[in-house]
């Protein structure tokens, strides 16, 4: 559960989050692959539309 404590701990959290962003290289590559798949399928059907 997210905390609604004091503003102080909020600031601390923010700093913490800002300094040590977790390592998510695999995530970025994965979503980019998803994006690539979407773009390729879209272009495929668009090409079909143009060719008909």
């Amino acid at each position, binding site marked *: *559960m*997210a*905390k*609604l404590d004091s503003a102080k701990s*909020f600031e601390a*959290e*923010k700093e*913490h*989050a800002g300094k*040590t962003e*977790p*390592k*998510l*290289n*695999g*995530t970025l*590559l*994965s*979503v980019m692959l*998803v994006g690539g*798949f*979407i773009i390729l*399928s*879209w272009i495929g*059907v*668009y090409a*079909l*539309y143009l060719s*008909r």
Partner: protein
Amino acid sequence: METTLINRKDAKLSLAHIYVGFIAVLLGGIAGLLQTFVRSGAITLPAGIGYYQLLTAHGVLLALVFTTYFIIGFLYSGISKTTGTLAEGPRKLGWAGYYVMTTGTVITTIMILTNDASVLYTFYAPLQASPWFYIGLALVVIGSWISGAGMFRQYRNWKKANPGQLSPLFSFMAVMTMLLWLIATLGVAATVVLQLIPWSFGWVDTINVLLSRTLFWYFGHPLVYFWLLPAYICWYVIIPKIIGGKIFSDSLARLSFVLFLLFSIPVGFHHQLLESGVSHTWKFIQVTLTFMVIVPSLMTAFSLFATFELSGRQKGARGLFGWVKKLPWKDARFFAPFMGMLIFIPAGAGGIINASNQLNQVIHNTLWVTGHFHLTVATSVALTFFGIAYWLIPHLTGRTLTKKINLLANIQTIIWVVGMAMMSGAMHTVGLLGAPRRTAYTTYGDYPDALGWIPYEVAMAVGGSFLFIGILVLIYIVVHLSFFAPKGVEAYPIGEVADQAERTPAILENWKLWIGVCVALILFAYTIPIMEIIENAPPGSPGFRLW
């Protein structure tokens, strides 16, 4: 915490819903199997059953009955889990809703069985079913509103008892789902109660067809988000716990649900792109709004991968994809929903194509569309619901998911994915070739192109057979978990938020604000086109019974 069972009375309410849902899956699955056999020319239906009668039953049982019952059962259980035992009022509303919905379902089913309603689950006028078919559907919707009111009340009680506190994520998402449903169903309720029922009783002679279709599709698109959001609840809240990780970000999860509420309703014209009477401009405006609703799904994709990667790295995974190996592949509670997520990638890509204005001409009303929603609702959503059932049913019945049943559930998932890849893959391909959906066996007088579709229809039947076996395995598991599995305590997995995630802004829970923006967007997208539809209306249509 998750080792305590939810209140037994609440469990009973949830179970009653879930059982009806799975009975619908079994009956609908039988219809689906027969459809694939008819379409490929392998059989003709006995005893005067019509293909379209069967298809009406399949659509109503699976798309409307299974989904709605399972969703309400699941959401009630999670609300009881996260906000505490249901108060008397909300529980009574839950049961009232259940009985009203079930009355409606029975009436509707009888009308389909007596062949008085072979109008398919979208019941487009001016095909005219028996008035009782529409009355049954209206009762299902009204019942679901009563259930929704119960959830809203439970949530309000919790807010009152915990002033200034952020609500549990599950309950927030459940309320958002039911709110979306409430606003969306106003459209279908309007056409059913104000147009279809008076017209089918003969109180009025004719109906405004385009208005009825527009009101239907005002509801039809958010309907698919009503199916999807509970699956997203599982992905956001339940899965992190099962894989031993944390919820990536509470605020981003809530933000994505807010965006779904805002942008999933003012977009219905993307189902009417090829019809007369709606101007190019308004179609394109709604296409643009449709693209906005893709954004929260992009956010979800990131959050899910991030949850997996973070938990994997915490367990010592290294490299770009080391975390993949740390996922609990053998745990059916994870594996089934995970395959659902994976299938959502091609499903979502297909959806973007469908909504792309004139690209819709390539696929509209072809089997591509049927292939598309068997990926979205019949795989992404269905597999996630199955995955939920594997722990939820034993949790509710006070039994446990044994190793053996867990293995069987994994086999079920594989059968489903393989069968669906075949059936949906064939549907997508033959759809691009132009084969129409909702069409019984035909070769159009041995027209060569249509003959060329038959092999794909055979592939659909093979895939459909896998799927049907999958349904039998599923039903065996459900029955076993309900009545025969060993007694014990099955956990209700509710995830916790990652330490580094920051505080959730209170604005995300400002319901007045979001309902206001939602209504404003709907008024923007629909006021002018609906005024035009009414002002320029042609003389109405009488009813037809062409089956």
